[in-house]
């Protein structure tokens, strides 16, 4: 178990370093790492410190958020298909963010953007847990997710189409597919505190989630206060997903793929899966963000394209496996 964490941590650190070295400006690996720590305003150090460093940090933060909340949701709902993107939580967070930007709230009050995205995410998780709640089967969970995602993305499109700004409409793609291009340290400081608090709430859910595998009644008998667990999950997920979506848009499938791949390695214990999924999510988003910069550097490929290419087939595979239950 701890070996798995060590491996994931090493992998994340390696990809973080690669992420710092990769970019459109041709700078050698050594020169770039030196410039990262150099003081002064040379163009190289500006590129490293103000463009690439925030990008790598955000990829880590966003990936960890999505992996962690995916693992927590799957554990709580006891359903391998639960994932912030598929359940519409990211979508409602994006709606919150778009509303903050379009009303000018984000421009007048810096915390307006993450707070509004967080509110959207909160509404999304709340709806999902209410709709698919206590004994919700896979089918009702997925259908509720589809409905919430569709509604949220339609509202995002509406808000952007109504905007007087000619560029707003083209941003529908960003909010649906996500990107980390040209983010700055401001975005890191905006997201970091919310992600930290949310991650703390989710990571302490380990024991209750393990108990819930025995059934909710059994968990209650073991002394878990389910109502509190639920609120912790809802608030924690809203915090991490809301803050990530506010700065990076909607990146799907990370919370689905990562827990699924790591589950066999942790003995199928949802509690242990939490930390591993957070690291795994960081690895996946860091890798995807390196790919979008290497494969089609000019095309400004969105992150969600890569994660969906990996995630959608897996999603279909999972549906295929659970089709008995769905039928």
């Amino acid at each position, binding site marked *: 178990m701890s070996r798995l964490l060590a491996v994931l941590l090493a992998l994340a650190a390696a990809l973080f370093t690669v992420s710092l070295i990769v*970019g*459109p*400006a041709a*700078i050698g690996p050594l020169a770039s790492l030196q410039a990262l720590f150099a003081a002064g*305003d040379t*163009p*190289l150090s*500006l*590129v490293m410190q*103000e*463009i*690439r460093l925030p990008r790598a940090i955000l990829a880590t933060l966003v990936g960890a958020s999505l992996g962690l909340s995916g693992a927590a949701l799957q554990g709580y709902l006891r359903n391998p298909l639960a994932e912030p993107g598929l359940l519409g939580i990211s979508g409602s967070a994006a709606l919150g963010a778009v509303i903050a*930007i*379009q009303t*000018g709230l*984000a*421009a007048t009050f810096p915390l307006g953007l993450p707070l509004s995205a967080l509110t959207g995410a909160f509404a999304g998780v709340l709806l999902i847990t209410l709709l698919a709640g206590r004994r919700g089967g896979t089918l009702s969970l997925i259908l509720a997710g589809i409905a919430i995602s569709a509604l949220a993305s339609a509202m995002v499109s509406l808000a952007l189409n109504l*905007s*007087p*700004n*000619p*560029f*707003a409409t*083209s*941003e529908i793609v*960003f909010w649906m597919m996500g990107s980390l*291009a*040209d983010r*700055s*340290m*401001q975005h890191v400081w905006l997201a970091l505190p919310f992600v930290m608090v949310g991650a703390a709430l989710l990571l302490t859910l380990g024991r209750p989630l393990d108990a819930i595998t025995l059934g909710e009644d059994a968990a209650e008998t073991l002394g878990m206060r389910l109502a509190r667990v639920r609120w912790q999950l809802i608030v924690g997920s809203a915090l991490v997903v809301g803050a990530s979506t506010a700065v990076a848009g909607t990146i799907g499938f990370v919370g689905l793929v990562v827990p699924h791949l790591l589950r066999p390695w942790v003995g199928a214990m949802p509690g242990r899966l939490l930390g591993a999924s957070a690291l795994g999510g960081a690895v996946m988003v860091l890798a995807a963000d390196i790919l979008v910069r290497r494969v089609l*550097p*000019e095309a*400004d490929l969105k992150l969600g394209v890569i994660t969906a290419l990996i995630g959608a087939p897996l999603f279909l595979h999972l549906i295929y496996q659970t089709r008995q239950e769905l039928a």
Partner: protein
Amino acid sequence: MVSVAIAVPLWLHRPGGALAGLLLVLVALNNAAFAGEPSAPQRVVSMNLCTDQLAMLVAGEGQLASVSALSRDPISSAIADQAQAYPVNHGRAEEIHLLDPDLVIAGRFSAGATVAMLKRLGIPVAVFEPATSLDDVRRNLLRMGELLGRTERARELVEAFDRRVAMLSGEPLDPPEAALYFPNGYTRGEDTLVGDIVRAAGFNNIASGLGVAGGGHLPLEQLVVAEPELVITGSRNRGYSRSQAIMQHPVLDEVARFGARRGLVNREWVCGTPRVLAAIERIGALRGELVGSR
């Protein structure tokens, strides 16, 4: 106009007919100026922001029946005030057909389906390419003059334009390096109208060194490494968007010695009309300021 051009040489061959011929031309031109020539279109509809502005400059009284709705938008249109005088259209085939035009003027990137539909309905459509250089401004003006039967007016406009361009653009000894940077991280190179404007105003565009001739995405990293002395960007649009938030990236203030300036006013350069002179003047003033302080 066409009939006059053919008739004149015949008259001139007759002894003593030269004066009469000249008089006829003058009369014809006078007529054209007021009522338009018989062959010239009388109900012209323009459905593109840029052709709107060219047509408004060139057309005779009452000749232009409608312009696009965008031409009333003060941010994009240089003659939003004058556009109030014309009925507007939204580029839809149905409304344009109802206006019963004898000529429709569209831009190259106007809705292709609409243009095809209008042609099927038997309405003549003239399609203008967007200007990608100062030369194109001249060409488009002259073409508009021919289409509207107002060649003389168009020629006057071109002559005035050429005089101003010659006055505004000189070959500077040591042109400063500038980066053009637009929402979504777009830049424009030499083969674009705004690239030509910036060149005429005496700047070296860093896009040339990066292999961008037309429009293209300029990664922020490459912009920083290219070390421009000035980052020139367009005016803010109304409302909010992420695309424009890139202009607030903190690195932009540190990269160029003279920072990032909203040196361009969109309505002055998005269309190839004589209004680009104002943009050349504006950028030229920026250059003067910059060269003075270095």
